[in-house]
C-alpha cells in the first residue's frame, strides 16, 4: 500500500467532497440560513413598517407581549384543534383505506392515480371549490343535508362550525398522502409471517392487530410526521376559505403571524410569532421521532 498514493487520493476526495456541495450550500446559506438568523434578530426588535419604520432594539419585549395576548393563545388553540383533528382523521382514514386497497385487484394503479389528484391539486383552487360547496345558500353540502331532512348550517360563517369544516376539507385533500405511503409499505411486507399465521389458524383480526399493524407502524408514523409539519403551518386552505374568520375563530398561528406581519406590518412582532411557530413544529416532530424510535426498539427486542 503506497502511502503517497492514498494520501493524494484522499486529498482529491477531500476537496471534491466539499467543492461539489459548496455552491448549493452557499445559496442555501443565503436564502435559508440568513432569513432564519435575521428573523431571530428581528424578533428582538420593534420594526413597524406602517409607522415610523425605525428598527429599535427592545430585547424580549415582543415575546412578553405575544405571550400575554389573548389573540395569540386563541391562535394556538386553533392550531392545536385543527392539527389534531386533521392529522388524526387523516391517519386513521388513510390507514383504513390502505388496508382496504392492499389486495391485488384490477384497476389498482388507476385507483392510486385518482388518489394522487387531491395531493397534487393546487391548494388555492381546491379551497375555493370547497368554499363554494360549504356556502350557506347555494352550497351542495347544505343541499344534501336538507335532502336527508337536516337543517342547513352556517359552516364557514359560524365560529363553532368553521374549524370542523376546515378539518374536513383538509382531510379530503391529505388523507390520500397517508393512504399511499401506508399502501406502499403494505405492498412491500414479507408474505411469510402472514402465511405461517394463517397456517396456525389465526383469525383475520388477529393477523391485523398482531402482524399487519405492527409491521406498518413505522410507515404510519413517518406519514403522520410529514403531514404534521405542514398541518401545523396550514396557510393556503384557511387563508383562502376564511382568512382566519369569522372573527378570529379559524385564525391559526401561521395566519396570525401573517396578519401581524403583512396586514399590520409589524415585522418585529411577526418575526417573534414565526420563531414560536417554528419551535412548536420542531418539538412536535421530535416527539413523533421519539415515538417512532421507541417503536423500532420494541420490534428489535
Amino acid at each position, binding site marked *: 500500500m503506497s502511502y503517497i498514493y492514498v494520501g493524494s487520493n484522499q486529498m482529491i476526495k477531500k476537496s*471534491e*467532497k466539499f467543492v*461539489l*456541495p459548496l*455552491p*448549493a450550500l452557499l*445559496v*442555501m446559506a443565503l*436564502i*435559508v440560513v440568513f*432569513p*432564519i438568523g435575521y*428573523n431571530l434578530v428581528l424578533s428582538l426588535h420593534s*420594526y413597524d413598517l406602517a409607522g415610523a419604520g425605525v428598527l429599535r432594539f427592545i430585547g424580549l419585549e415582543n415575546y412578553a407581549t405575544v405571550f400575554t395576548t389573548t389573540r395569540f393563545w386563541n391562535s394556538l388553540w386553533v392550531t392545536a384543534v385543527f392539527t389534531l383533528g386533521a392529522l388524526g382523521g387523516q391517519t386513521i382514514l388513510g390507514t383504513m383505506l390502505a388496508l*382496504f386497497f392492499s389486495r391485488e*385487484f384490477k*384497476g389498482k394503479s388507476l*385507483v392510486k*392515480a385518482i*388518489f*394522487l*389528484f*387531491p*395531493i*397534487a*391539486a*393546487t391548494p*388555492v*383552487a*381546491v379551497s*375555493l*371549490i*370547497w*368554499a*363554494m360547496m360549504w356556502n350557506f345558500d*347555494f352550497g*351542495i353540502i347544505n343541499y344534501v343535508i336538507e335532502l336527508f331532512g337536516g337543517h342547513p348550517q352556517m359552516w364557514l360563517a359560524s365560529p363553532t362550525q368553521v374549524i370542523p369544516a376546515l378539518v374536513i376539507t383538509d382531510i*379530503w385533500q391529505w388523507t390520500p398522502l397517508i393512504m*399511499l405511503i401506508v399502501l*406502499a409499505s403494505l405492498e412491500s411486507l414479507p408474505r411469510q409471517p402472514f402465511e405461517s399465521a394463517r397456517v396456525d*389458524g389465526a383469525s383475520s383480526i388477529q393477523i391485523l392487530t398482531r402482524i399487519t399493524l405492527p409491521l406498518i407502524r413505522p410507515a404510519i408514523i*413517518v406519514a403522520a410526521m*410529514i403531514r404534521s*409539519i405542514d398541518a401545523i*403551518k396550514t396557510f*393556503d386552505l384557511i*387563508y*383562502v376559505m376564511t382568512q382566519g374568520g369569522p372573527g378570529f375563530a379559524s385564525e391559526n398561528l*401561521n395566519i396570525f*403571524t*401573517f396578519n401581524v*406581519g*403583512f396586514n399590520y406590518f409589524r*415585522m418585529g412582532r*411577526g*418575526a417573534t410569532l*414565526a420563531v414560536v*411557530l*417554528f419551535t412548536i*413544529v420542531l418539538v412536535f416532530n421530535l416527539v413523533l421521532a421519539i415515538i417512532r424510535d421507541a417503536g423500532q426498539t420494541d420490534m428489535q427486542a
Partner: protein
Amino acid sequence: MQSTRDNNQLADSSVSHLAARQEPGQRILSHRAERHVKRGLFYVGVVLLCMVPLFVFFWMISSGLKTQADNIAIPPKIFFEPTFANFAEVIAGRNFFAYGVNSFIVAFGAVAISLFLGLPAAYSIAKYRLRKIGLTLLISRMVPFVSYLIPWFIAFRTLQLIDTYIALITTHLIITLPYVIWVMINFFENVPVSLEESARIDGANFTQSFIYVILPVVRNGVFTASVLAFIFSWNQFLFSLILSGRDTMTVPVAVFQFITYDQINWGGLGAAATLITLPPLVLTLFIQKYIIRGLTTGAVKE
C-alpha cells in the same frame, strides 16, 4: 383447463374449511358464488371510495361549464347545458394566460437552478455520507414560510425588487432547492461508487463521468424531483401573494383575486380553478411510479 381451475377452487375452499370458521356440512359449491359476491361488493366499495376524491374535481369542472344561473340553482344541477363562456372569459377577459406564463417562468427558473446546484451537491452528500448536511436540510422544511417571508420582504423592499421574477424565483428556491437535494441523495445512495471510479479510470474527468455515466442511472429520480419541485412552485401561494405584483402575478394569486374583487362569479371561479389545477394533475400521472418515494424522502431515517 377448466377442471383444474375448479379443482383448485375446491382445494382452496376445503383448505379454508380446515382453517375453521365455516360450519362443517355447508355446501362447498356455494363458496364460489360467495366469492363472486364478495368480489362484487369489493368493487362497489372501490368505486364509491374513488368518487370521494373525484367528486370535488367533477364539481370544479362542472361549475366552470355552468352559467351563473345554473351555478346557484337549487337543487344543484348535475345535468346542465355546458357553456364555454366562463373559460373564454377567464382566458381572454382576465388575461389568465399571462399569469400562467408568469407561473411557468418562476417554476421553470426555480427548478432549473435547483437541479444545477442540487445535483452535484446531492451526489457528494450521498457518496461521502455527509449525513449532518442532509439533516440540516430537513430542518429548513420545518421552518414556517413566514419566517423566510418577513426577512425577504424587507430585503426585496429595500432593493426595490418586489414584483420581479428574481424575488419570486429566489423565494421559491427555498422550497425547491432543499427538496431536489433530499430526493436526489436518496437516489444517488443506490449508485455504486465503482461506477464513477471506472469512468474516471477510463480517463473521464469528474464532470464528464457525472453527466454521462452517473446521471443517466438516476434519470427517474431527476425526473421525479423536477416534476414535484415544479408542482410545489406552481402551487405556491404565500410567497407569491406578497412578492408578486401586477407584472409577475402567478396563477394561485390570480385565482385568489376572484373572490376578493367583484361579487362571486362561480362559473369563472370554477373555470380558473380547473385551468390552474390541470398542469399539476397531468404532470403527476407521468411520475406515478416514483411519487411516494419522492414525497417521503427526507422524513425516512437512513
